[in-house]
């Protein structure tokens, strides 16, 4: 109402009386009537008759109702604007006030910000990992159409994720209406012999349409693979990955058309895939080669050497495709009973398939960080409550001075949201760092880890989490304080009523905190025990001091069994002679690193089994030194020796599982078995039974397995395995030298110690257990700090009572006991509630546990003890302080 100017001499102010709708109508009436009257008067002065003047005034004014409607509309517009302005002003004022309060209490602000930053930071980091791996769409066009097919041979006692024979793949591809395209791939690890130092490359052989139709990704340079590249007898052609192009050719575009010698065969580079192209299989592949349909596909229908990726037809669902695969599977089983009996086919969305092993652990971690944030929020709520108690007088005064209750509530909530905002900003900073750490820490081979990053999606999540957290920890104190009986508080200096009620609420919060901490600690305890159990599992071999590496013998230089055997014999001898090597041998696969696939086995003297009923057995080719190097032990009979040469009677060693399955209740030693070829019976005598080893994974039980001497069954892919007396990696260069001496074109690849392999096999479990342990520790610390805060505040609020008791003769020790007992009661309730919650939530862990149940009494008891112990320590400090209260001072203080 400032800026009065020219009108002052003409106008005197009247108080504004009108309010609300009726007031508004009256105002409009007044304004219109004033105009009409003035106009009529003017006309009368000009000589108009009174009645005619009034009519003329109305005529000149126009339709009064229309005018009023227009005025009303504008009025509403203005009111909305004013309300918004008032709201904006008050929010701004609250925000400024909140910042001022925080500046005045820097310690409080720092503690709250750090607590929240921790909670929000770990949530953001874990969410970024979970989002990247589980939620983000795959980087392919229409990624939801991509599926993986599996052969399901559970009916014959096999796995449900078996690979495909080319014939079965081809028939499904050609007949399925729900599939738009399908292609198969097989692993391919050629040695590249053009460079000075030959290299082992990682690649895949793909059937027609894999790149162009199924994955639908065009090369960044050159052309994709065409039908003619897949034709039988086509010249060798390859696509390079961007990474390999960068690493080996410095991104030289002239690589197109050049020829690489792989396994002694020429391959022309026709294209380079774009940067960031990571096929769902072998995301780190260096190259892809087209493969043509095998000539004898029909004969190999019973095999499993291809993996299949497909694209659903438009509008088809995974379920529909699955149903069709079921029908086609049944039809194929009918048409080809010898190979397909007991075999059906499954369809899994590609993304689900890629992350199936990772999902449970990630979701557990996501849940865990949610709990961490909850506990952090409870802590902050506790801090706010104790501070609110201290501010009750200030608030009472403001209220007495006319501040509306909802304004006080709004201001308190604004303070909380400002705190949440600060915590969120600090949390995001923490999350950037933590996400990098998580990615670095993630086990090798974690699917899609390259898609993990903190970006807009993740920050949106953080913003939502932060706001929710602010409301969560801010609402309760704000409601409580703004509803407090302020008159009483003003009179009593804000000590008694509010404080006691606050303590009740805060005690409930402590119970909640302890319960949440209990849940996390139990989860972490169970996972750590599982991990220990995994590590303590008897593997059946001794990984310490063993180093393994890989060698591939190309058919061009090793065309037949004779040349292969000559090489392996020579290498075996040379390896054992390396100084510092205790034992050395060759094997066709290393335990815990993957599969070759099973072969079927027949027992001599038994009728041929029905198709689909054959026993499958894992086939491994070894030299005698391998057994020694791995320190495997024998249950019965003997291992091979130098007497089991190519010209000698054929022999085989079964593992205990195969012995039990194939010869139940019989002694297999001396019996004969035939592998994979009923038409051409080459019988091998069982000469021994080896103890089972953990071959497929530490969690997985043993399967049928057999060991065949390399001297009697030539292979072209071998892993030299050496046991060194000292550091196993020290002998690697000597191995390379020996290999080079035998054949300089061979590549010694994949050098790994057996210890590393075992560690990698439990890396996912260790990752989850470590993080859950970390989060549980953080939560424990937060809960203990929260408890300490409440007890300390409680003692402070009861100084008078304590002083009185002491003045009346209570002993100091009894006072301390009272304080500690009170807090232990809270902890006891919290532990009980937490126990119930932990048992209820334990189901989420089931798939991660190993050798320990979710109700493991030892873990539960240990966690309960840990909590009670920490709580005692947290309560002891204020308790001791309470006992030192000087009654005289305490009584005077009020």
């Amino acid at each position: 109402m400032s800026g009065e100017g020219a009108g002052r001499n003409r106008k005197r102010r009247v108080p504004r009386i009108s309010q609300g709708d009726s007031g508004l109508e009256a105002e409009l009436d007044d304004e219109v009537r004033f105009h009409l009257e003035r106009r009529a008067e003017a006309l009368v002065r000009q000589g108009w008759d009174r009645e005619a003047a009034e009519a003329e005034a109305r005529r000149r004014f126009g339709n009064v109702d229309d005018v009023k409607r227009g005025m009303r509309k504008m009025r509403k517009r203005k009111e909305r604007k004013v309300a918004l302005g008032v709201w904006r002003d008050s929010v701004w004022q609250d925000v400024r006030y909140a910042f001022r309060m925080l500046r005045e209490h820097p310690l409080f602000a720092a503690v709250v910000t750090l607590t929240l930053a921790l909670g929000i930071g770990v949530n953001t980091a874990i969410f970024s990992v979970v989002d990247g791996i589980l939620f983000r769409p795959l980087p392919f066009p229409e990624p939801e159409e991509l599926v993986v097919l599996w052969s399901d041979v559970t009916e014959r006692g096999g796995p449900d994720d078996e690979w495909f024979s080319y014939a079965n793949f081809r028939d499904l591809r050609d007949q399925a209406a729900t599939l738009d395209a399908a292609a198969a791939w097989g692993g391919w690890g050629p040695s590249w012999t053009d460079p000075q130092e030959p290299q082992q490359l990682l690649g895949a052989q793909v059937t027609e349409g894999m790149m162009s139709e199924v994955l639908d990704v065009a090369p960044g340079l050159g052309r994709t693979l065409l039908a003619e590249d897949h034709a039988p007898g086509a010249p060798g052609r390859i696509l390079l990955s961007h990474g390999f192009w960068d690493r080996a050719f410095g991104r030289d575009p002239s690589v197109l058309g050049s020829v690489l010698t792989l396994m002694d065969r020429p391959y022309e580079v026709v294209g380079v895939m774009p940067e960031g192209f990571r096929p769902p299989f072998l995301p780190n592949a260096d190259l892809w080669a087209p493969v043509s349909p095998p000539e004898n596909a029909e004969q190999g229908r019973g095999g499993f050497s291809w993996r299949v990726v497909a694209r659903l037809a438009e509008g088809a669902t995974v379920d529909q495709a699955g149903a069709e695969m079921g029908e086609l599977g049944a039809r194929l089983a009918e048409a080809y009973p010898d190979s397909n009996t007991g075999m059906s086919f499954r369809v899994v969305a590609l993304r689900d398939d890629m992350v199936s092993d990772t999902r449970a652990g990630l979701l557990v971690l996501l849940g865990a960080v949610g709990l961490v944030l909850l506990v952090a929020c409870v802590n902050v709520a506790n801090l706010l409550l104790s501070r609110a108690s201290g501010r009750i007088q200030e608030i009472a005064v403001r209220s007495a001075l006319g501040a509306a209750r909802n304004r006080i509530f709004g201001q308190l909530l604004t303070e909380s949201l400002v705190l949440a905002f600060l915590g969120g900003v600090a949390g995001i900073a923490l999350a950037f760092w933590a996400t990098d750490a998580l990615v670095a820490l993630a086990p090798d081979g974690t699917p899609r880890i390259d898609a993990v990053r903190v970006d807009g999606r993740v920050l949106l999540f953080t913003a939502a989490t932060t706001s929710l957290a602010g409301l969560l920890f801010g609402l309760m104190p704000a409601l409580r304080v703004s509803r407090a009986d302020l008159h009483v508080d003003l009179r009593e200096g804000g000590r008694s009523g509010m404080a006691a009620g606050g303590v009740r609420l805060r005690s409930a919060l402590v119970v909640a905190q302890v319960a949440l901490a209990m849940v996390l600690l139990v989860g972490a305890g169970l996972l750590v025990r599982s991990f220990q159990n995994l590590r303590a599992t008897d593997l059946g071999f001794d990984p310490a001091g063993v180093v393994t590496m890989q060698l591939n013998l190309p058919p061009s230089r090793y065309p037949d069994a004779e040349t292969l055997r000559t090489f392996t014999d020579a290498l075996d001898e040379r390896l054992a002679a390396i100084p510092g090597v205790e034992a050395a041998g060759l094997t066709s696969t290393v335990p815990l690193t993957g599969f070759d696939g099973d072969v079927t086995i027949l027992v001599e003297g038994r009728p041929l089994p029905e198709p689909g009923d054959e026993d499958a057995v894992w086939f491994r080719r070894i030299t005698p030194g391998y057994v020694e190097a791995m320190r495997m032990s024998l249950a019965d009979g003997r291992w091979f020796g130098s007497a089991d040469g190519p010209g000698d009677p054929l022999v085989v060693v079964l593992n205990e599982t195969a012995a039990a399955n194939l010869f139940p209740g019989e002694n297999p030693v001396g019996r004969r078995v035939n592998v994979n070829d009923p038409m051409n019976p080459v019988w091998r005598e069982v000469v021994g039974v080896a103890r089972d080893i953990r071959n497929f994974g530490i969690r997985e039980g043993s399967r049928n397995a057999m060991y065949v001497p390399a001297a009697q069954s030539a292979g072209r892919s071998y892993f030299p395995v050496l046991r060194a007396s000292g550091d196993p990696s020290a002998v690697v260069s000597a191995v390379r030298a020996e290999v080079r001496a035998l054949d300089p074109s061979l590549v010694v690849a994949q050098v790994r110690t057996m210890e590393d392999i075992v560690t990698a096999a439990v890396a996912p479990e260790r990752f989850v257990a470590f993080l859950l342990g970390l989060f549980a520790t953080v939560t424990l610390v937060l809960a203990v700090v929260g408890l300490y805060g409440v007890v300390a505040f409680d003692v402070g609020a009861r100084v008078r009572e304590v002083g009185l008791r002491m003045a009346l003769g209570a002993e100091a020790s009894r006072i301390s006991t009272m304080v500690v007992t009170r807090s232990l009661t809270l902890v006891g309730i919290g532990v009980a509630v937490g126990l119930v919650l932990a048992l209820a939530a334990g189901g989420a862990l089931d798939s991660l546990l190993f050798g320990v149940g979710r109700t493991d009494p030892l873990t539960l008891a240990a966690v309960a003890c840990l909590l009670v112990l920490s709580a005692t320590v947290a309560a002891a400090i204020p308790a001791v302080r309470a006992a030192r209260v000087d009654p005289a001072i305490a009584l005077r203080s009020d």
Partner: protein
Amino acid sequence: MTEHQMNLIRGTVDLLILKALSGGERHGYAVSEWLRDATGGTLLVEEGTLYPALHRLEAKGWVAADWGLSENNRRAKYYRLTKAGAERLEEERALWDRYATAVEQALAEDPAG
């Protein structure tokens, strides 16, 4: 008289009201009187249409209003220009000048040339 009457374009109403108030605060009737006098009676409007316009300008914050007593001691609503309104007046005026100049210039041109 009717051949001289013109309907005011909406934007022009705003401009003229702002101008009317630039001389100091006035009630609606005074604005309509000034408008008639200042245009020589040429730009006659239905007087009532001024009121929604005044309220619109008020909602926009270009004019402020409060109740006072008029010369003859009757309750009347007075409008005055705010600072934003004064600025707006300058802008509208410049805009009008440009518009009028452009139209005039066009009318002076010989379409045949």
